[in-house]
């Protein structure tokens, strides 16, 4: 029977410094291990895969600006590092960035499985822009690629600040809407985070990542010296009855401009995509029906189309939807060039659809479009605007589709596009 040890530590600290050194070493090692594994998880995807499948991308500009890029690339997608892109200047930069946003189609019919496969969120009113933080600075660019702000931010690599988080080469890209009245960038999507590309991730993942990562940088804090604008993640909901209701009627710190619908499984796809949809009505947006340059709603619906070879007029879709044809003589007389964006009004003849598909339009020529514009209108936008003027898709229609889905979970919707 061992003697019962009752001696206790007396006037001594319970932990020896050597033990402390061991523990600190273990801690350091396990942190480095976890960093190394984390890096391994992210590295392979840190180069953005850029899908330049749309035929009207100007390849010259892209390739000239990126000398490292293999000239023999013949595949449709080319790898492009955003840090190189951020070195682009002037028009090249604008052109490049203009193509980087994922653009929603307008909702002209209600997609299948809305409640199961989609998120809904209230779009803040303001300028859609692309925010890139890298090399100690943050730049926001609006849809046509021109710079909105150039500022320090708490985003990774977003400010020249000692002890800032993350390695020096880390950069991030956010898809935002700048909301003027409270000078806040509302983040609707996350494209890259700390050099980790999210292009290939599902919306479900990107949204979760966005919600958890953004706040931890301090980007959601009020503005300060190293953080000029506040960022805020837009709340999103499963698109069931209650989610739709929350997004549509819920009170939010920003002015709403319609609802955005994201398919949960969709990757970040640059350019137009049917997997993100925008829908508006009078009660959730001030701008349901397009206004003219004076801010007034014109009597007739105006649309902008792109002129192609042989007088073909097409939408900005990929592939483009042909809308009409201009008389070759007229093109010659008016000196219009291929590629021009031309504004038309829709006449009394309206748009004729057969089986939900556009067939012909009564177009009245107005003139060459405003130079600020980068793109023609998309097919869905033209159709949505047309419907808004004649037989709008109402919020009740969305709600009833959802409740219909719930009742017959597995019956496919009747009104699909095909």
């Amino acid at each position: 029977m061992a003697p019962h040890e009752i001696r206790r530590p007396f006037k001594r600290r319970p932990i020896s410094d050597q033990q402390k050194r061991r523990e600190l070493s273990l801690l350091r090692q396990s942190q480095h291990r976890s960093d190394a594994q984390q890096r391994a998880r992210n590295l392979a995807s840190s180069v953005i895969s850029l899908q330049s499948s749309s035929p009207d991308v100007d390849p010259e500009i892209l390739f000239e600006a990126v000398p490292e890029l293999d000239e023999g690339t013949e595949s449709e997608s080319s790898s492009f590092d955003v840090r190189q892109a951020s070195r682009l200047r002037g028009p090249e930069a604008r052109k490049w960035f203009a193509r980087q946003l994922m653009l929603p189609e307008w909702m002209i019919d209600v997609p299948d499985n809305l409640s199961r496969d989609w998120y809904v969120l209230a779009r803040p009113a303001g300028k859609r822009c692309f925010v890139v933080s890298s090399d100690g600075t943050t730049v926001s660019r609006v849809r046509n690629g021109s710079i909105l702000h150039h500022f320090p931010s708490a985003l990774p690599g977003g400010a020249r600040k000692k002890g800032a988080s993350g390695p020096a080469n880390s950069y991030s890209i956010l898809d935002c809407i700048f909301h003027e009245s409270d000078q806040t960038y509302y983040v609707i999507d996350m494209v890259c985070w700390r050099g980790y590309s999210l292009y290939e991730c599902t919306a479900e993942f990107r949204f979760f990542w966005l919600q958890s990562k953004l706040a931890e940088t301090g980007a959601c804090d009020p503005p300060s010296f190293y953080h000029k604008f506040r960022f805020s993640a837009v709340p999103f909901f499963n698109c069931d009855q209650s989610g739709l209701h929350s997004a549509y009627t819920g009170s939010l710190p920003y002015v709403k401009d319609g609802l955005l619908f994201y398919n949960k499984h969709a990757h970040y796809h640059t350019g137009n995509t049917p997997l993100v949809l925008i829908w508006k009505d009078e009660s959730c947006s001030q701008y349901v029906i397009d206004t003219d340059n004076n801010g007034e709603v014109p009597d007739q619906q105006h649309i902008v189309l792109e002129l192609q070879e042989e007088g073909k007029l097409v939408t900005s879709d990929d592939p483009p939807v042909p809308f009409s044809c201009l008389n070759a003589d007229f093109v010659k007389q008016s000196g219009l060039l291929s590629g021009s964006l031309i504004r038309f009004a829709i006449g009394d003849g309206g748009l004729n659809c057969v089986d939900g598909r556009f067939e012909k339009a009564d177009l009245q020529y107005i003139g060459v479009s405003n130079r600020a514009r980068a793109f023609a209108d998309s097919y869905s936008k033209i159709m949505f605007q047309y419907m808004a003027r004649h037989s709008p898709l109402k919020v009740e229609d969305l709600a009833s589709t959802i409740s219909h889905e719930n009742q017959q979970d597995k019956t496919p919707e009747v009104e699909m596009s095909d």
Partner: protein
Amino acid sequence: MAMEITQFLSAAQSADARIRTEAEGSLRQFQEQNLPQFLLSLSFELASDDKPSESRRLAGILLKNSLDAKDSATKDHLVKQWFAIEVALKSQIKEQLLRTLGSSTLEARHTSAQVIAKVASIEIPQKQWPELVGSLLNNMTQQGSPAHLKQSTLETLGYVCEEISHHDLVQDEVNSVLTAVVQGMNQSENTAEVRLAATKALLNALDFSQTNFENEMERTYIMKMVCETACSKEAEIRQAAFECLVSIASTYYEVLEQYMQTLFELTSNAVKGDEESVALQAIEFWSSICDEEIDRQEYDSPDSGDSSPPHSCFIEKALPHLVQMLLETLQKQQEDQDHDDDVWNISMAGGTCLGLVARTVGDGVVPLVMPFVERNISSPEWRSREAATYAFGSILEGPTIDKLAPMVGAGLEFLLTATKDGNNHVRDTTAWTLSRIFEFLHSPESGFSVISPENLPRIVGVLLESIKDVPNVAEKVCGAIYNLAQGYEDSGASSSILSPYLTEIITHLLAAAERTDGAESKLRGAAYETLNEVVRCSNLSEASSIIAHLLPAIMKKLAETMDLPIISTDDREKQAELQASLCGVLQVIIQKLSGSDDTRPIIMQNADDIMRLFLRVFGCHSSSVHEEAMLAIGALAYTTGAEFVKYMPELFRYLQMGLQNFEEYQVCSITVGVIGDICRALDEQILPFCDQIMGLLIQNLQSDALHRSVKPPIFSCFGDIALAIDAHFERYVAPAIQIMQGAAQVCAQMDTLDEELMDYANQLRRSIFEAYSGILQGFKDTKAELMVPYAQHLLQFVEVVSKDSLRDESVTKAAVAAMGDLADVVGENPKQLFRNFTFCGEFLNECLQSEDEDLKVTARWTQGMIARLMISS
């Protein structure tokens, strides 16, 4: 039949070395040739009262050594040997052992009791000696059993209880054992020797008595007997009874309420008037109650709901009397208690208990102690001044800052002055009290400190003056500086209020470390440890040049240790100890200066010289690898990065030695960690060394002789290596994963009731997942297909872990990450697997709802990876 071996046993103890060696040889030969006969002969020797006592003594020792060893591998071997012996022969041996319990020679009885317990520890769990308990009890109950047989039987029962687990006996046996033991304590029936043996046996049997303590009648009876025994007239028996009470305090805290009044009176009388050995146990009783209540308070977080164990507030209820009792012990100091580490007396025990009481009840203790402090602190009698100071220092942990701040604020200047007291004890306790003040009431980061820019110069001045005091006082002053520096650890990025004093503090600490009069105390160690903390907590931007100057000074000191005259092993040990301290300082400096891009070059410039020193330190100690040097090398590898490769040719053999050092398993463990550091520093440049490293690591995992705590780091290290050498890990993947699968299997079979074992299981699982992650990510894009055959097993393992409610968060995180890695890396193939493993979704959901941000993020990433896999076509 047993052989006559008396002459060999006697000769083996001869003063004549030649005779001794020869006899030892003969015994060894006998043992090797016929172990069963050898053991039988030993047992007869031990049992024979007509044999000389020396030969019986050696026979007992040899028997014990044939049944038990400290080293677990040897122990396993001995157990196997014993099982291999024929049953009939073992019965004879056991019979002789039991017979010896009745011997007239005390020593033989005592030895036999120990040997019986060793046999019991092997056989009882296997149900191979069912009659043992019965025959022991028979010794107790048989009419006319002599007292000396009862005494050794009780002793045997105690040892047996100590060796086996209470699961090995049925409740009836437990009841009988307990009855016999408690009856043995009966004063009217038994001799003092029997009662002492019975009381000591009870101490070991208490762990067996769960069921009996649940029954109020039985419990009360046992308590009554213990309390009566605590009043025996023999001090040794009283002490043993109080030891039982100490054990009961922690084992049966829940049921003590009804006895508390009695226990208080009993312990209180003992503390006041009994002999010190008894009084110390009586104080320990209250310290144990404090431990229990503190545990319960810490456990009792609001989250844990109703599952927290009951808290009876014994300390709070007894508080005024208890504090009074403890304060009275404080003035019973021993003259030289501060110089001798082995001293443990009543004032030390009382003060320590007072500290625990303060931690248990908090603010309530303060008004009860302060009048004592005020009354005595200025007394002309040193015992009173020391007691007052010690009481004050003891209650600084526990009460709120609000309660303590005014008193400490008012008393600080007094204490600073008291560092000049004429009495060594008073100065020692004063310095200790200052260090406690800085530990608990100096936390600028959280908004409160007794130190202000106004009094800091005075405080630093006093400390640097007192560090020149006698060694025991200087050591406490080091503690005070340690806590002073620690308070400023996170005090803002721009500036530290301590920076202007750094040079002076460092100079004084180095001087204290150099002192020769402190040889016997721990002053030098304390000075270097404090130096480490001062460096760690300094503001790097303000201190960088000071630390940069410290670096060559420490390097020079380390170089000087190589030239110390080494004559004895004692010299060698002292050299190693000094080198340990200096390597520790270097490690801290390396880590500190690596913390910023501006100062890292200082380490880079000196890396060659530093490394050369570490290699020389290794060279000084041929038999083992120096642990602190190894730790520091890990830090250096991290700092230098890929350049570290140039040190590998020379360093490598020490790494190999470290990995093979099973005896000092800490060294082995640290070496494994350093290999991880080196992998991260070198990446694929580690490749030429990997065959040997992996060989050793696998060997280590397979060995039973290596302390188990080293095994989880080895699995993690697999991951580090794989991540460093990517596709080249191919050649190790089969053996590595085979062992990982084996270990995963072992985890699943561990006893879930054993907390310590569960802790280990968690470490093991986490490290296996880390290994999978490293291997998977290393193979990404190149050899991913190699992991296809293991995907199923990995997911099964995750599934098992996901269903285990005892896993801790870090295991969950590693499991989820490994699952994501599988989806990320292996691509198409596991798609169907993920579909089949339906637990994934549920597990991910659980993780996504966790409070732990890190876990949520990892789970989301994994969710993304799996989702990507699922929707890809």
